[in-house]
């Protein structure tokens, strides 16, 4: 933020000037009845900027103070919203991370590793019944692991969908409280400190769920907008939000059988999902519409878990069906090991199963060639552990690496969210302290303090840059 304070001196000067104008106005008011008092005026001069120019007109000290208080309150609410996003994201990703164990002993990677080992053992003794049975057992285990992973993703999606509905209900509830509080103001409770505190508390709670802006109207009521655009409360009118789990009219599904995204619909029936970028609701929408579909799929993408399940099943089936179970004559061709529901790319992991019709004796070990190799397909299957061909990979990665990347992405996102949350909690504390600092300070004093702040900020900022560069340089040296 190097150019952040480029205009600070000018702005602080403006504040200083404004304070003097207020002093003059107050002096005029105080002395208005003093005999012989000479009225003073201190005009503000704006730089010409267009043919009509702009002048403030009508701003009083009270308005200025009120503006500063509202600004400080809004800053606290913004930081709360950002914290809400990160809390939700961190919690959801942390839960999701538990489903992605990269240990080679369990889950999908464990079952895959075992199957590849059993392929290898089978290639050594291709006619051994026990080795063949082990392959079938491991295949069964792998299918179940994919099913379990898909079920976990499905549950996470369902839970998040419910959370979205609960959050929207909570937003509507709090908006209803604010509407009631506005009604009390209209009924004559203006200036009630208790009511004021209650409204601020309600607004702060609301800001945890979504990014809101609140402005106090001349009649004392508060207007609340979501993301600065969509009305939630105006006076005694409340505009409820709704959730829709449907694809938007302009974006039909591109993947058959995939679930629709969650969409937030405002009181006017407008889809405002894209502008909900802060607060717990934004975190939930991100998990439901982006993070989970990237793994489990939705109406617009297959999801990496399904892609992996399909790639593994298709490749193993392809190798087995290219081989022969026996030489015959006539030669008996191999049959697929895995099945899944065709035509629904997002259901592959959930429906992956071992072919009911296959028996240990029907595993095709023979590669008819040329060259003819009696354990050729078994060897080829064992080779999937260290792929030598793009056909045995997904996007350039072995199956184990692909799963590892998927788990690592979730882990990294989870860690990032936790780190950011730690800083954000301090940002909330900072915003609260800045709000306290702003109270009871004259504008003149504040202007003077700001000049000092600029100097202190510049010095600290330069130190941060130096420290960061030094750290990077040291990392480069020892990496």
């Amino acid at each position, binding site marked *: 933020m190097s150019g952040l304070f480029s205009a600070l001196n000018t702005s*602080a000067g403006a504040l200083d000037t404004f304070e003097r104008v207020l002093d003059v106005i107050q002096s005029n008011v105080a002395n208005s009845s003093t005999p012989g008092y000479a009225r003073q005026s201190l005009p*503000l001069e*704006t730089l010409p900027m267009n043919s009509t120019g702009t*002048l*403030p007109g009508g701003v009083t000290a009270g308005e200025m103070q009120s503006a500063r208080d509202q600004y400080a309150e809004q800053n606290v609410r913004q930081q709360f919203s950002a914290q809400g996003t990160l809390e939700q994201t961190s919690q959801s990703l942390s839960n999701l991370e538990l489903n992605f164990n990269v240990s080679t002993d369990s889950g999908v990677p464990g079952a895959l590793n075992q199957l590849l080992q059993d392929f290898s053992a089978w290639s050594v003794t291709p006619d051994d019944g026990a080795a063949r049975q082990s392959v079938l057992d491991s295949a069964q285990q792998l299918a179940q692991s994919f099913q379990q992973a898909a079920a976990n993703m499905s549950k996470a999606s369902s839970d998040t969908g419910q959370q979205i509905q609960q959050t929207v209900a909570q937003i509507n509830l709090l908006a209803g409280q604010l509407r009631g509080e506005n009604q009390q103001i209209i009924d004559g409770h203006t200036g009630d400190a208790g009511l004021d505190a209650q409204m601020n508390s309600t607004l702060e709670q609301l800001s945890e769920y979504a990014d809101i802006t609140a402005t106090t109207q001349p009649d004392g009521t508060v207007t609340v907008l979501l993301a600065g655009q969509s009305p939630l409360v105006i006076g005694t009118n409340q505009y409820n939000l709704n959730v829709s789990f449907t694809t938007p009219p302009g974006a039909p599904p591109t993947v058959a059988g995939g679930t629709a995204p969650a969409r937030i619909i405002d009181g006017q029936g407008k889809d405002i999902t894209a502008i909900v970028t802060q607060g717990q609701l934004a975190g939930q929408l991100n998990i439901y519409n982006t993070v989970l579909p990237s793994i489990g799929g939705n109406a617009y993408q297959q999801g990496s878990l399904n892609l992996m399940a399909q790639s593994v099943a298709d490749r193993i089936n392809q190798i087995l069906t290219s081989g022969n179970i026996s030489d015959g004559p006539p030669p008996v061709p191999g049959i697929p090991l895995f099945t899944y529901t065709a035509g629904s790319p997002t259901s592959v992991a959930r429906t992956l199963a071992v072919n009911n019709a296959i028996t240990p004796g029907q595993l095709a070990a023979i590669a008819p060639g040329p060259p003819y190799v009696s354990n050729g397909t078994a060897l080829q299957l064992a080779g999937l552990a260290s792929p030598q061909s793009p056909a045995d990979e997904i996007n350039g990665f072995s199956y184990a690496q692909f799963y590892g990347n998927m788990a690592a992405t979730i882990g990294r996102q989870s860690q990032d969210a936790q780190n950011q949350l730690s800083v954000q909690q301090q940002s909330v504390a*900072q915003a609260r302290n*800045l709000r306290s600092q702003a109270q009871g300070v004259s504008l003149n004093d504040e202007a003077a303090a700001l000049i000092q702040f600029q100097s*202190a900020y510049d010095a600290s900022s330069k130190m941060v840059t130096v420290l960061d560069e030094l750290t990077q*340089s040291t990392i480069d040296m*020892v990496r």
Partner: protein
Amino acid sequence: MPNGKHIPAASLEARAEARVRELQALVGEARTLLTNPTNEALDACRSRLEEAANALGSLHSSLPSGYPSRDRALVVALGALRSEIAGVQILLDGAAAFYTGWMRLASSMAAGYTANGSPARTETQRRVLVEA
């Protein structure tokens, strides 16, 4: 190092890592100070950052050339230090953004807006007109 004391590489690595962890704690103190960004806190923050930068500079220059590469523990410690520094930067910028935003708002209240929507500059040169 013919006349000096020979320090085993493992010991050197452990010392470097411990030193970086100390610096991380120092920067962490600076970060905590910024949760209440008064001018005094900012000065205290700067002095800690300066101390950390000096110490890191000394550490950097003390590492012998050909320092064991792939010192995983030290890289992790330095990564944590960088995260701490990034946290300081965020809080520093957060405080600055707060004041800048308020300045813009105050300025616009005092002088209105220009045609392109930014707050107009207020002429700070003052005149007093006295009407008899």
